[in-house]
């Protein structure tokens, strides 16, 4: 039901998530934000089981902040991703595993932009583009076809729009709007929400 997507460019990462918070067949909220700011240049996008998402994401968020307070400098996106994965893995075979699917996007001042795909079985993969949810089945091939490593910001947004158009056309569920954010060396920028009007 939920959808996450991330596209990495030369010097930025573009991420988007749908805005629906649902409970069985009812849409409880249509402007729900699924992105968690881990630090000035790292975002964690989190979907999955109710309760687990917020609890796990906030746990990671607070621990990343704690690291900064204790050590005086921030965790890099790669380190944050591995930290997250380790936590997920540690809980996987406990009585209370977290059923969450994640995308971690960040900009490292030395290594540049990075997008990390993580799933509920605690696999971690650094990827140029990634998506979660049923919508991923429809849009990964679009990303395969049109993605280039040297995409400009506008081209990346257009690629994102192509994906969202496909969801509107073929996905059985209605996802009316998406929060879009871009991370680059300046930090996290809120882009315009992608809303699909009645076309």
């Amino acid at each position, binding site marked *: 039901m939920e959808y996450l997507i991330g596209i990495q460019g030369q010097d930025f990462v573009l991420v988007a998530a749908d805005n629906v*918070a649902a*409970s069985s*067949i*009812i849409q*409880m*909220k249509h402007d*729900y934000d699924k992105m968690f700011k881990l630090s000035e240049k790292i975002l964690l996008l989190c979907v999955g*089981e*109710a*309760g*687990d998402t*917020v*609890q796990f994401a906030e746990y990671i968020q607070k621990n990343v902040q704690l690291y900064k307070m204790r050590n005086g400098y921030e965790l890099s996106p790669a380190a944050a991703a591995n930290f997250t994965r380790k936590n997920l893995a540690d809980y996987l075979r406990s009585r*209370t595993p977290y059923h969450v699917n994640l995308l971690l996007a960040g900009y490292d001042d030395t290594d540049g932009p990075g997008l990390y795909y993580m799933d509920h079985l605690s696999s971690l993969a650094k990827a140029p583009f990634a998506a979660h949810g049923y919508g991923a089945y429809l849009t990964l091939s679009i990303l395969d076809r049109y993605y280039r490593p040297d995409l400009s910001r506008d081209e990346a947004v257009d690629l994102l729009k192509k994906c969202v158009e496909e969801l509107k056309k073929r996905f059985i569920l209605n996802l009316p709007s998406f929060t879009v954010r871009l991370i680059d060396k300046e930090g996290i920028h809120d882009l315009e929400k992608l809303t699909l009007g009645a076309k």
Partner: protein
Amino acid sequence: MLLVHHTFSKMALASVLSGDSADFSFDSSQSFAFGGGPGPSGLGLEGTPGDSLSFSVKNPLCVGDDDGVERKIEFLHGTTTLAFKFQHGVIVAVDSRATAGSYIASQTVKKVIEINPYLLGTMAGGAADCSFWERLLARQCRIYELRNKERISVAAASKLLANMVYQYKGMGLSMGTMVCGWDKRGPGLYYVDSEGNRVCGDLFAVGSGSMYAYGVMDSGVRHDLTVEEACELGRRAIYQATYRDAYSGGQVNLYHVHSEGWTRISQDDVLVLHHQYKDQA
């Protein structure tokens, strides 16, 4: 609303009360007072069978669990509760029927819990779960007030409740509640449930009749309603839900939360409303 005779496992209640607790030893073959679902099993049984005071009648509905997997209790959330924000605060409207299976156990249940003079909580799901956890929340809110010399915000109160029930996720708690209040950020409305959801919003309906209530509310709600209009909208939405949903009924209890706190507005029997609306149309 489902009334079920329940015994919490010794572990859970003792740790919550953290003191000399009564010996709630757990026996999975316990009988139930009303036709509830199968009992929770595999909850870290500690009590030794044989020394407890249980009624050891094998419950025909309780299928033995050999694999120790926690069985989810099939509660029906038989109720309709709703709340919405508008310019003058928050309107909270609930029905008052409690069911045990298809038996109507009561038509006069109070489904709004008065946490403190400016915070309300609604009840949907298991009656015991809701009233217990919201009473616990009231205690936590009072402790916060005493420690910080300041009223607790609605966001913080709902987060406390959400974190409390998250620890019991998967163990069979059934609770769908809305925490409504007024704090220094204005009117506040949060939906919290035993699955772990906690969502801030302007309008919620919870329970088996919630879909019917959503229909009426969505088509009538505006930010600039007067208090009178908003009360009537809440009342009508609950009435329409009780009309269609078999598990909702009784009376409509209406509350209004404003900057000074909450006020009980009215209590109307659904049958009386039915004749009133029929004559109106």
